[in-house]
């Protein structure tokens, strides 16, 4: 198993001229689970979008590195090829674009040397769909088009399983999932964790952290990480909210 390190160094990000992230430092390694918590508007989702390379999120300072390689200004597809994956908080619908075609193209782009046959590929996808209790016909639907909140989240997890990233950022993966679905999703995350994938779990509540125990908990407030700790921090946040954490 190869080890991967995502380093975020003093990252500053503006959206439409307004500074949202004001110098964030984080290091996530293979096999680690980090939780990023914080009140609404702290900049949690901005961090996710910035890491994935959304052009509307302007990096005004700092660096993003994977295994020492500077990806601060890289295209989203270059980041994906370096092993980064974001499960979007609100995945967008793309009418008419079939999931099967999309997944297959993405896989071939990420692993050009594998030359996996179409049949083998779809068997792999099918297995993952079974694990997530998704109907096989799902694959012929268009990306997120007409999906319920829960279906969108499952599809994000399905993509993560199929595309095998090295570091995965999960932005509010638990929202929109009912208890049973959350269990399935958590089980998949644990499986991937066992395969040495590193996680950054972005969450407002700590519902999902009952199933996936983070080794590291970071609290983001007003664009800055104001606390680094462990499970005790998230437990205390659940009881007392964010008020006790001073900037």
């Amino acid at each position, binding site marked *: 198993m190869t080890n991967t390190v995502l380093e975020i160094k003093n990252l500053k990000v503006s959206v439409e001229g307004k500074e949202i992230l004001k110098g964030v430092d984080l290091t996530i390694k293979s096999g680690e689970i980090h939780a990023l918590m914080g009140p609404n508007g702290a900049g949690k989702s901005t961090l996710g979008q910035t890491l994935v390379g*959304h052009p509307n999120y302007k990096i005004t300072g700092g660096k993003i590195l994977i295994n020492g390689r500077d990806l601060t200004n890289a295209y989203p597809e270059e980041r994906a090829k370096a092993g980064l994956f974001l499960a979007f908080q609100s995945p967008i619908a*793309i009418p008419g674009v079939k999931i099967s075609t999309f997944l297959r*193209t993405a896989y071939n782009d*990420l692993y050009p040397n594998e030359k996996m046959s179409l049949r083998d590929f779809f068997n792999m996808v099918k297995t993952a769909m079974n694990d997530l209790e998704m109907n096989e016909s799902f694959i012929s639907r268009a990306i997120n088009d007409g999906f319920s909140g829960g279906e969108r989240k499952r599809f994000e997890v399905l*993509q993560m399983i199929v595309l095998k990233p090295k570091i995965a950022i999960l932005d509010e993966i638990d929202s929109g999932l009912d208890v049973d679905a959350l269990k399935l999703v958590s089980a998949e995350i644990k499986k991937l964790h066992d395969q040495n994938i590193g996680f950054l779990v972005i969450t407002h509540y700590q519902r999902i952290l009952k199933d996936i125990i983070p080794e590291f908990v970071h609290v983001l407030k007003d664009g800055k990480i104001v606390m680094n700790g462990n499970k005790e921090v998230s437990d205390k946040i659940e009881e007392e909210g964010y008020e006790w954490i001073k900037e």
Partner: protein
Amino acid sequence: MEYYDKDEEIERLTESLKNSKKSDFEFYDTIEPIYSTGKGLNRKTVEEISDIKKEPGWMRESRLKALDIFLSKPMPTWGPDLSGINFDNLTYYTRPGENKAKSWDDVDPKIKDTFTKLGIPAMEQKYLAGSVAQYDSEGVYGSLRKEWESKGVIFTDLDTAVQKYPDLVKEYYCKAIPPSDNKFAALNGAVWSGGSFLYVPKNVHIDLPLQTYFRMNGEQSGQFEHTIVIADEGASVHYIEGCTAPRYNTSSLHTAIVEIYARKNSNVKYTSVQNWSDSVYNLPVKRAWVDEGAHMDWVTGELGSKVTMIYPSSYLRGKGASTSNLQITLATKGTFKDAGGKAIHLAPDTTSRIVSKSISLDDGLTAYRGLVRMNEGASRAKSHVQCDALLINNDSKNYTYPFDEIYEPTAEFSHEATVGKIGTDELTYMRSRGLSEDEASSMIVLGFMDDIMKEIPMEFAVEMNRLVKLEMSKMGAVG
């Protein structure tokens, strides 16, 4: 594995075409025509065409009358700029050879080679009940499977039909589209040559499509085919047309007429995908008469040409007649596609659905120009029009001109229109999974057309797929 089989087929086919380019259809060959009327159009040209074809008197008369109408009508100015057409510089009739072959082996080897490059004989073998191939002005090949011939189906070029089935041709010729209709209908009436004649007898259902492929080769030439499709009572048929031409610096003109007669309780599907090179003015007139209980499906893809004006129309003449009209238009750099559908409701309980999807790339311009008319007495008639436009670049343009004339109080009519761009969020989402910008944007474009792609035969879908990917990769960055 049923969910992936079609993907697998498309992937395989697209892969096999990967290294070819659009220009592969734009090659020109060195065939010298054996006869041409030379440049320009006058009474003598028309008489010459009629003489060559040894036509009956009524057809000759009809041509000359159409010529007078053509000369008397002004150029239409309400749509795209047509000033690039110089009627005096065009060649109106070019005969490639003597033969009309029933087997590919009997087709002039050079012409056969052209159609082989376009994949026509292979397509025919695989999924057609019959096929006609036209090269410049004349049909050069025609075949129909025995099974259908023995049931009384007629499928040939119109010239042959005028000679062999004059009464049947006379009954329908220019009934739905008389030369007086417009300048280009009149032009076709004067100089038409080639086109298909398809007659399906009562209650005959042809399960495989029939196809005609039109190839224009000559520079500064015109192709003026006239096609007539008749589905007699209770019959059903799917007729397909494909068209390509070489690229020249000077303009060519394609002015076809397609007349479709869907008789009582019949079912006709007409699919046409044109990929003319961008030196062609494409100004066809297509119209269907739809009788009681009959259904007419139009599926048209307007991919190529410099200027296209096309408005397939259904005249819903009998109670319960219905029509569906699906159209994709693609306007690439420097081209103008003015297209739309028309549905004329003349009887009770008639229904129509028009769906238009247009894509403008670079400074390409698409316009939707459609008409829904519901005459008084068309009780309970229903119509739905949907036009969606996708603008790829900042220079891309789309106009929408819907004409709705509703004279019947019990009729229902609705119209939806959207104009969109490829969004940053969509692109970022797809690219974050590893897709390049080209891949992501072509997938979004193909997804936008998906409703209609489903209705198009596999070979055309693959070609469309390839063309969109090619055009998107030429674009570079979207925006």
